[in-house]
C-alpha cells in the first residue's frame, strides 16, 4: 500500500477542475493507455493575459489524479511566462510529497503543462511529436527526456530515472543506455549498478591471495562458464599475475577474450584485488596480459 499524504488523498477523492475546456487557448495531451497513465490538460486565458481557467482529465492512479488536480490550481492566475516556470517539484511540494516510485506522475503534469503552452504558442496547431532517439521502447521515452530529468533533478541512478519518467521500468533493456546518459550529464557523480564498493580484504598474504583467487573462481566464475558448457582451471598465481586455462567450450570459443576480461578478470578484481592481471596459460607472451 502506498503511503500517500493527506493532500494527495484529498485531491484524489475531491479532484478540482475536472473537465475539458472546449474553446481552450492551450491543449496538452501526454501519456497513453498503454503506459498506464495519461493526462489531457486545457487552459483558457482571461482578458488580463493570465490563466483564467484550467481543467484536466486523467487516466491513472491516485497520485496521477492528484498531481493533475493540483496543477490546475497552481497555474490559475499565472501569466504564461510564470506558468512556464512551474516544474514537477512545485506539484510535489503542493501535495506534501509523493512516493519515489510515483514521481513520474508529477512529471506527467509538468509535461502536459509544457505541451499546452507550446500548443498556445503555436496558435492551436498540433505540436510536433517528440523528436530524438527513443531510448526506452517500452514507454517511448527519448534521450532528450531522460537527459532533462537527470539534469533538472540531479539524478545519479537509473532507478531514479525510472521513478521520474518511467524509462527502464519495462523490460529493463535500456538500463545500460540510461546509465550512459547519467554518466554524460553527471560525470563522476553517476552511480552505475555495478559500482557499489566491493568488500575486499585490505591486505593479503600470498597464501590468502591464492586461496581467495581459487575461491572466487569456484564460486563466482566457474558456474557462469559452466552454464555455457565451458570451464576454467587456476594454473598459477605469480605476484599479481593470475594464470588460468579455459576448458570445454571456452577453449574453442571466439568470445573467450571477452569472457577473460569481462568475467574472469572483472570478478577477480572485484573480489580479490584491483591490482590483479589475468592471463591465459600458454598465451602469456602473445597477449602480454589484459590490461
Amino acid at each position: 500500500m502506498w503511503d500517500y499524504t493527506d493532500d494527495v488523498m484529498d485531491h484524489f477523492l475531491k479532484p478540482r477542475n475536472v473537465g475539458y475546456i472546449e474553446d481552450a487557448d492551450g491543449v496538452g495531451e501526454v501519456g497513453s493507455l498503454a503506459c498506464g497513465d495519461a493526462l489531457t490538460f486545457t487552459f483558457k486565458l482571461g482578458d488580463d493575459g493570465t490563466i483564467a481557467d484550467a481543467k484536466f482529465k486523467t487516466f491513472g492512479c491516485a497520485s496521477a489524479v492528484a498531481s493533475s488536480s493540483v496543477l490546475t490550481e497552481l497555474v490559475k492566475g499565472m501569466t504564461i511566462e510564470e506558468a512556464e516556470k512551474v516544474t514537477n517539484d512545485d506539484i510535489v511540494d503542493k501535495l506534501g510529497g509523493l512516493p519515489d516510485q510515483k514521481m513520474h506522475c508529477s512529471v506527467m503534469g509538468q509535461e502536459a503543462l509544457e505541451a499546452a503552452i507550446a500548443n498556445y504558442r503555436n496558435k492551436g496547431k498540433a505540436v510536433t511529436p517528440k523528436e530524438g532517439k527513443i531510448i526506452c521502447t517500452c514507454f517511448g521515452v527519448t534521450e532528450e527526456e531522460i537527459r532533462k530529468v537527470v539534469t533538472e533533478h540531479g539524478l545519479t541512478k537509473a532507478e531514479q530515472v525510472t521513478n521520474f519518467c518511467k524509462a527502464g521500468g519495462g523490460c529493463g533493456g535500456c538500463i545500460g543506455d540510461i546509465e550512459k546518459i547519467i554518466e554524460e550529464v553527471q560525470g563522476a557523480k553517476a552511480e552505475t549498478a555495478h559500482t557499489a564498493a566491493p568488500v575486499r580484504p585490505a591486505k593479503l598474504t600470498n597464501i590468502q591471495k591464492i586461496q581467495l583467487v581459487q575461491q572466487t573462481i569456484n564460486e563466482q566464475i566457474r558456474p557462469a562458464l559452466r552454464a555455457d558448457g565451458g570451464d576454467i582451471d587456476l594454473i598459477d598465481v605469480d605476484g599479481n599475475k593470475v594464470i588460468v586455462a579455459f576448458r570445454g567450450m571456452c577453449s574453442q570459443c571466439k568470445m573467450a577474450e571477452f569472457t577473460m576480461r569481462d568475467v574472469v578478470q572483472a570478478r577477480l578484481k572485484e573480489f580479490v584485488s584491483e591490482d590483479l592481471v589475468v592471463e591465459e596459460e600458454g598465451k602469456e607472451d602473445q597477449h602480454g596480459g589484459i590490461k
Partner: protein
Amino acid sequence: MTIVYMDNNATTKVAQEVVEEMLPYFTEFYGNPSSMHSFGGQVGKKVVEARQRIASLLGCTPDEIVFTSCGTESDNAAIRGVLESAGARRKIITSRIEHPAVLSTCRQLEAHGYMIVEIGVDKQGRLNLDELKDSVDENTALVTIMHANNETGVIFPIEEIAQLAKSKGVVFHTDAVQTVGKIPVNLKDSAIDLLSLSGHKLHGPKGVGVLYVRKGTRLTPFMVGGHQESGKRAGTENVPGIIALGKACQLAEQNIVHENTVVKDLRDRLEKKILETCTDSFVNGDTENRLPNTSNISFEFIEGESILMMLDMYGICASSGSACTSGSLEPSHVMRAMGVPFTAAHGSIRYSLSRYTTQQEVDFVAEKMPAIVNRLRELSPFVKT
C-alpha cells in the same frame, strides 16, 4: 469502519477453531517433538494427527506430507530438489502465468544452465496443451504447472498434464496453493508427483506450508540439517503452525461442498450485478473452469489502483493487476500473457471470496462499484462525454 474482505486469494482470516487448536502449543505444550521425554513426545503425537488430517484432505498417505515454512519454500524445494536428482536432464517446462515463487526460481535456474520452456495461454487464460505436449522430451527433468491461477482463478487440467509427464518419465509438480480447500484434490488416483500448498490461503496461519512428495519421487532435500521430516526437510518443526494447518485442512474438508455451492453462488451474484451495472466491463479468464471464489473483472478506460483506493474508502479489500499497484510499471504478467488489451489490463480488479463472505457484503460491494467506476470515468480522458 467495517472491513469487507474480498482478497482471500492474497491471504485469509485464520479460523477461530484453528487459533484455539494451536494456542496451547505456544506456552503449555511447548516441547520439541524430536525429544525423548514424554513432554515432547505428546507434541509429536499431535503433529502426527495434523499430518493425518492433511493427508485425508489430499487423499494421500501421511508419510507423503513434508512440512515447510510456506508455499514459496515448497515450490523452491520441489523445483531445486528434482533438478539435483535429475542427472543429465536439463530442461524445465512451466507456464508464463505461474506465481513468482515458481517463475523466478525457474528464471534463476536458467542462468545456471537449465533450459526453461514457458508455455503460453490463450485469451481466456487457458494453457496451450499442444505446445506443452511438443515440449516434453527425454531431456526434460520437470514439468511444473500451477493447479489454478491466482489472478484469474482459471483451473488447469493438471491430471492430464501429470499423465503426459509420467508417460515420458518426467517428474510433475503443481503449485496448488490456490486450490487446496477450494476445490477437491485427490492424489490417490493421480499421477502428480509433487504438490505445494500454503496454510494461510485456507484459513490457517502464515508461516506454514506443505510439500506433498509421492512415494518414490527422487528429490534431494532443499534444507539440510537435522533428521526432521524423515530427512526430507531439516529444521525444528513449526509445531503450532503445523497443528493449525492440520485443523485448517480438516475444516476445509468439511467445507468443500460449501465452497462450491454457497461461495460460488455469492461469487456469481457479485459478478452478475457488477457486469449489469457497470458498462464496459468484462470477466477475465475461462468462466467454465474457474475457482468458485474468484472473479477478475476489467473496467475499461480506468485504472486499477484508483479503483482500489476508492474501494478502500468503504473498507472494501480487493486486488488489481494494474501496473501501479505493484510498484512496477507494467500490468500483471498474467494479464499480459493472456493478451488482455492495455485499456483493460490496467483496470482489472480481482475479487476473491471465502466461506466467511456474506450476501450483505456482496451486495454492498456490488452497490458501490457503479458509482466508483462512473466517477473515475468522468476523470478519464479516454471516455468522451
